[in-house]
């Protein structure tokens, strides 16, 4: 097996970005880091710079202001890279579909590899989504 691929699937480094949501998904993602759920024991690290990240975890319905920055962060990530959309807003923008300043759904802007539904999804669901994506990468 490709050593590089093995190293990546063992411990993905995730960069988290909020595109204008209510912060509900963000706090459940941060909660996933806390001792009760402990994302880090899976070797998953929340990383600050896109340059070192394998996965982009995005929340929110993509406001107009934020779209360029979202795309830029994605472009700065090295290949191979993956995107996980967390929460109903990130999937379809649903609660904000009548809002004029919102694109609605991450996949209107970036290619998405995994979707974690929920409003917000519980930390367990987020971890499950990330784990499933890791599986998918392994294959």
């Amino acid at each position, binding site marked *: 097996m490709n050593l590089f691929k093995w190293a990546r699937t063992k411990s993905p480094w995730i960069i988290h970005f909020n595109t204008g949501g209510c912060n509900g998904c963000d706090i459940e993602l941060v909660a996933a880091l806390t001792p009760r759920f402990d994302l880090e024991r899976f070797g998953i690290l929340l990383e600050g710079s896109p340059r070192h990240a394998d996965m982009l975890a995005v929340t929110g319905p993509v*406001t*107009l*202001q934020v779209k360029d920055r979202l795309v830029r962060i994605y472009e700065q990530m090295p290949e191979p890279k993956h995107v996980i959309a967390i929460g109903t807003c990130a999937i379809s923008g649903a609660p904000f579909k*009548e809002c*004029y*300043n919102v694109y609605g759904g991450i996949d209107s802007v970036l290619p998405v590899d995994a979707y974690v539904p929920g409003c917000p999804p519980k930390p367990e669901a987020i971890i499950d989504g990330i784990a499933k994506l890791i599986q998918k990468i392994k294959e």
Partner: protein
Amino acid sequence: MEKENEIVEKLKNFLKRNLVRTTVPKERRIFVYIKKDALRHAVKYLAKDLKFKHLSTITGVDLGGEIEVIYHLAYKGSIVLSIRVTVSEKNPSVPTITDLIPGAVLYEREVHDLFGVKFEGHPDLSPLLLPEEWPQGVYPLRKEHELEHLREMTSKK
């Protein structure tokens, strides 16, 4: 509702013909409609004399042809007095109250962004909420702009 009625009486005496209408729908709520030219006069009196020092926010409302600007002031955090003026849609402008109540600074900017009301004398009416690329002269909370119309404009970006 003694205190509320007392306040209404004081306002009536102070503003005289500039006071168009008042309502006291329940305790701790007063609604006042005044002539636009008396705005600063009234706000100064309310803030300095009647101790309505706290401005909770400023609301804009599109009445169709006219825009209403409502200032929500609170007395000791308790009684909320909503004082309103109307301006024409064609040339919507009111004097600023930021020198009387510095806390008004962002609320005026917000109403400017969303309704196009100019607050004369405001130190900086640059956009607060809308993106840089937002088309000039398009005030999203005006009724004339339907959602699909706004989306079309912004998707051209």
